[in-house]
């Protein structure tokens, strides 16, 4: 499970897109819970990349369904670097 500060940083980036005002949790999904379309997700991915100064490869994206998945992926990449 990802660190709290990683999750908080990602929550902050998602907040402006959280149109339904749901409570953000690691289990929240982008498609069903947040109802983000693929174009919005693309912009969000770019913001996360820039925030953490990493690359989230396109190949990885289909597996990242929840906020927790993304946070784990971010930490895996930052730790590797």
């Amino acid at each position: 499970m990802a660190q709290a500060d990683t999750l908080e940083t990602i929550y902050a980036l998602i907040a402006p897109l959280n149109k339904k005002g749901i409570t953000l949790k690691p289990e929240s999904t982008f498609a069903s819970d947040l109802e983000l379309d693929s174009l919005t997700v693309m912009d969000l991915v770019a913001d996360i990349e820039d925030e953490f100064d990493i690359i989230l490869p396109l190949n990885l994206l289909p597996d990242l369904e929840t906020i927790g998945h993304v946070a784990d992926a971010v930490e895996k990449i930052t730790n590797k670097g």
Partner: protein
Amino acid sequence: MDLFDKFDPIVDLRASLPFKNTDPFKVVMDKILSETEAVIEGRHTILAGTNNYMGMTFYQEAIDAAKKALDDFGTGTTGSRVLNGTYGGHKALEATIADFYGMDHCMVFSTGYQANLGMISTLGGKDDFVIIDADSHASIYDACSLGNATVVRFKHNDIEHMEKRLKRLPADAGKLLVVEGIYSMLGDAAPLKEMLEVAKKYGCTTLVDEAHSMGFCGKNGRGVAEALGVEHLVDFFVGTFSKSVGTVGGFAVSNHPKFDVLRFVCRPYIFTASLPPSVIASATAAIEGIKRSGNRRAHLWANANQLHNGLKDLGFHLATQKAESAIIAVQVPDVQLGTKFWEQLLEEGVYVNMAAPPATPAGVFLMRVSVCAQHTSEQIETIIDRFKRTADIVGLNLK
């Protein structure tokens, strides 16, 4: 479990569109009267959405060459390029294209889609990076899925966004930057000079897809890189015969000394039948023709500018500030109005492409018009008039 159940949302979406009599998936061209006119549902229709930019589909020399090739070589090769499917004509076409681009090597593929699919999936290996624009054509995305490289995406035409990502990649890794000269949906040009200079600074190999710019961009019609004078920064050009060349097929050219090895390792090149001799012959004649077609190029640009200015003056919302290519994209606020507009315009006798997300960037809904060098300025004026009439009928507010 019916495997087709997963498509139900798409079926429902299509059924929800307010089409009355026809829709874009039902359009059948019953007669092709010329490069610019057809009969659709019994109506005489101006074609303004066929990507036939240079109007080479009825180019006499191409037709004559194709007929002769049919008589001399038959209807098809029935084989792969690497088995029995390479005829003299295929080699001659490759030489013609290499000469056209002033490069050493050329490979001809059976479609433009396969040219991108093959080049990008083969060049980008498992330890390499492929860097693509977010608005890339489906063939580029599919190439990324087929290949094993790590795929990095940057915001459309955003040089700073691209550089930030290049900076994060290992300095010594293999990197392939893939961009298009003209993007097919909005018809906007890439800032190729700056992009290629930045890419080279970070050690990228560069591939430029000139599918929608070949024929009319640049003095000789080689594309946007020629127009901007940056061809020396391009390692691979990919292009198609299904637009300005007026038939079907694709190609890649390069000066790389090891280029020909791709014929042994590029699966979309190998595991498909080669193009029929008649297609090869007409493509060769059309490319020879395009070289000499300065007048067609000039008229095509005049048409694009006339259409852009005319629609802009009427208050239509256009995707680009000025005509950057032969594609003029008109934005319509939503899918309901868009479907009505498209159908009404067809009934007025103008065929354009209706384009909806996700094929379009940023969720926009488009009437995508592509002009042809063989459109007369009177036809362009008629298209503009019918856009205006259609807007009035369906209630599209103009600025």
